């Protein structure tokens, strides 16, 4: 019934995906650095990072673009996934740290004699993988349960999520939390015993991020084209009417909210080994607001849009913070205002309009995902 992407759009998506996860890594690994076609490790790391961001933007689209729940704390779930995997990476350092101890360096520095209980089992990759999904997921489940049960909506929900990530950041800044205080985790050495900085490992993480992004897109599309997707957009537009039809809307909100948190957590876990550090600044309120901006710039309720938005905004950020670091925040704010005013459907909406106006093309059906009118912040 509702076809979100035309066959042509699918072709484009898979073509881009093939370039990202096959061609670029091949050029990175196979060609010597002197070769003009060589893709440098800078680009591999940068794009790998962007693809992790893109999954968070996609998760944001599910909850904000489709369901109308504006989370301003999505960075928290991303960071928690990162911390969960970071614990494993810290354990993998083994005795190669500065203090040559079994304990992570920051614990030796604090004069701790043994691991805190919640570090138990983190030397196991599998357990770490469980934590990556479970910690953000369970936190979202518990938080969402109470928030949705109390019928907290709209801007109040946004503010509470913002406060939640801020509170978590303050907590993680404390040394006694056992997560390295404001330095967080860094100086990672290995994953599964293999050196983390080797080109092969870097490429493997990059390809995994790309495949994860593609998988997340297919998964998100499956949700939004199911009847559940139509229920979610109905929650966004007319929640009380839907309740009157007999839907327990808070169960739906809780499910999609938790899914989005777990998706973001996995993205964080892929992100941390690529950038080599995780610290509490990832939980800063500004980070979570940026995530919302990626989705808004890309186009809410389009799935592909927020992915484009994450790439576009972060691409601009990479350039700006080198060229005019002091102007970046002004630019970001201006971008958000302009997009909200001029492009309510974001880059995806703009692209759709341009494609339809190209001569000689049969009008591609506009995606039947309308703008979330009521979800404006």
């Amino acid at each position, binding site marked *: 019934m509702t076809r979100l992407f035309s066959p042509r759009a699918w072709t484009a998506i898979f073509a881009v995906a093939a370039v990202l996860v096959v061609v670029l890594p091949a050029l990175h690994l196979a060609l010597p650095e002197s070769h003009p076609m060589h893709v440098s490790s800078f680009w591999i790391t940068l794009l790998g990072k962007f693809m992790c961001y893109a999954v968070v933007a996609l998760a944001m689209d599910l909850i904000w673009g489709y369901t109308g729940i504006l989370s301003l704390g999505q960075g928290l779930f991303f960071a928690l996934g990162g911390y969960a995997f970071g614990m494993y990476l810290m354990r993998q350092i083994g005795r190669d740290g500065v203090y040559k101890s079994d304990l992570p360096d920051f614990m030796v520095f604090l004069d701790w004699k043994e691991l805190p209980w919640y570090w138990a089992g983190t030397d196991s990759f599998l357990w770490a993988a469980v934590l990556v999904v479970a910690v953000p997921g369970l936190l979202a489940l518990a938080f969402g349960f109470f928030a949705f049960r109390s019928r907290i909506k709209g801007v109040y929900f946004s503010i509470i999520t913002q406060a939640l990530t801020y509170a978590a950041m303050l907590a993680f800044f404390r040394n006694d939390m056992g997560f390295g205080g404001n330095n967080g985790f860094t100086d990672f050495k290995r994953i599964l015993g293999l050196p983390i900085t080797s080109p092969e490992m870097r490429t493997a993480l990059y390809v995994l991020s790309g495949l994860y992004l593609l998988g997340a897109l297919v998964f998100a599309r499956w949700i939004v084209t199911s009847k559940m997707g139509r229920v979610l957009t109905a929650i966004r537009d007319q929640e009380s009417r839907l309740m009157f*039809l*007999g839907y327990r809307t808070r169960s739906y909100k809780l499910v999609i909210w938790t899914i989005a948190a777990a998706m973001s957590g996995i993205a964080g876990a892929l992100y941390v080994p690529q950038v080599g550090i995780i610290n509490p600044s990832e939980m800063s309120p500004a980070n979570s607001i940026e995530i919302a901006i990626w989705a808004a710039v890309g186009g809410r309720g389009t799935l592909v849009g927020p992915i484009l938005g994450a790439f576009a905004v972060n691409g601009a950020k990479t350039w700006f913070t080198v060229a005019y670091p002091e102007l970046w925040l002004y630019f970001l704010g201006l971008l958000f205002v302009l997009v909200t005013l001029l492009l309510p459907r974001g880059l995806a909406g703009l692209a759709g309009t341009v494609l339809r106006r190209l001569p000689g093309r049969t009008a591609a059906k506009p995606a039947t995902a309308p703008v979330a009118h009521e979800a404006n912040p």
Partner: protein
Amino acid sequence: MSDGSIHALPGTGEGVGYSHPLDPDRVDTRHGPILYLDDITVSFDGFKALNALSLTIERGELRCIIGPNGAGKTTMMDVITGKTRPDAGTAFFGQTFDLTRLPETEIARLGIGRKFQKPTVFESHTVFENLELAMKTDKRVRPTLFARLSSGQRELIARTLQTIRLAGSEHRLAGSLSHGQKQWLEIGMLLMQEPELILLDEPVAGMTDAETARTAELILELAGTHSVVVVEHDMDFVGKIARTVTVLHEGSVLAEGSMSAVQADERVIEVYLGR
């Protein structure tokens, strides 16, 4: 409609017509009316919105309720749907369901469907999707995620589209419909819930004359297969569809009977027609 999933045991002599003695979830009207209100009183801060109101609706009946503003029409609907709890009196749906105790959602699930004055359809969904969302089915998360329309369900939607005169428009966005069409879609969404009793609150408010005429046809079609209660101000419209009319005044029944009998009633003329 989708009768037939539940039948009485053969040979018991029951199960004829519309009785469903084996299903505790179905309204039981074997020995009486589908809706029974007796001595209902509702007061808001001392003001009696309903004052010892008594009313019965038989199965398959089409009943029009009229009355001046403040007569208690909407409050009566609120009591029937569980939105307002009466201070005194009894309200039964069939023989077994006490409407003064059941929660709102349960009453809706048991088969009392209500259309509000202001149409609220899902504007960014298509007409078809609106009906699909309203369909009576398992509305929990997991069944919804894996839901596929069966051919029976598609047929039900197609039939409903015919009934509400929107066949051919099923892929239009509901937001693009005219006011009258939205009202019909809303009635269609009500029908998709397969209600036993339909409450329509001012169904032709704001409609053009042509739309009003078609709505009258639609309601007449529904009567018989459904029990319908219409609350309406528009006397011409009531005249077109009315079989039995109940006049409310100051929270209780002033008169009841055919349209012409009611219109001839001295007291009705005095309070309602304002002479």
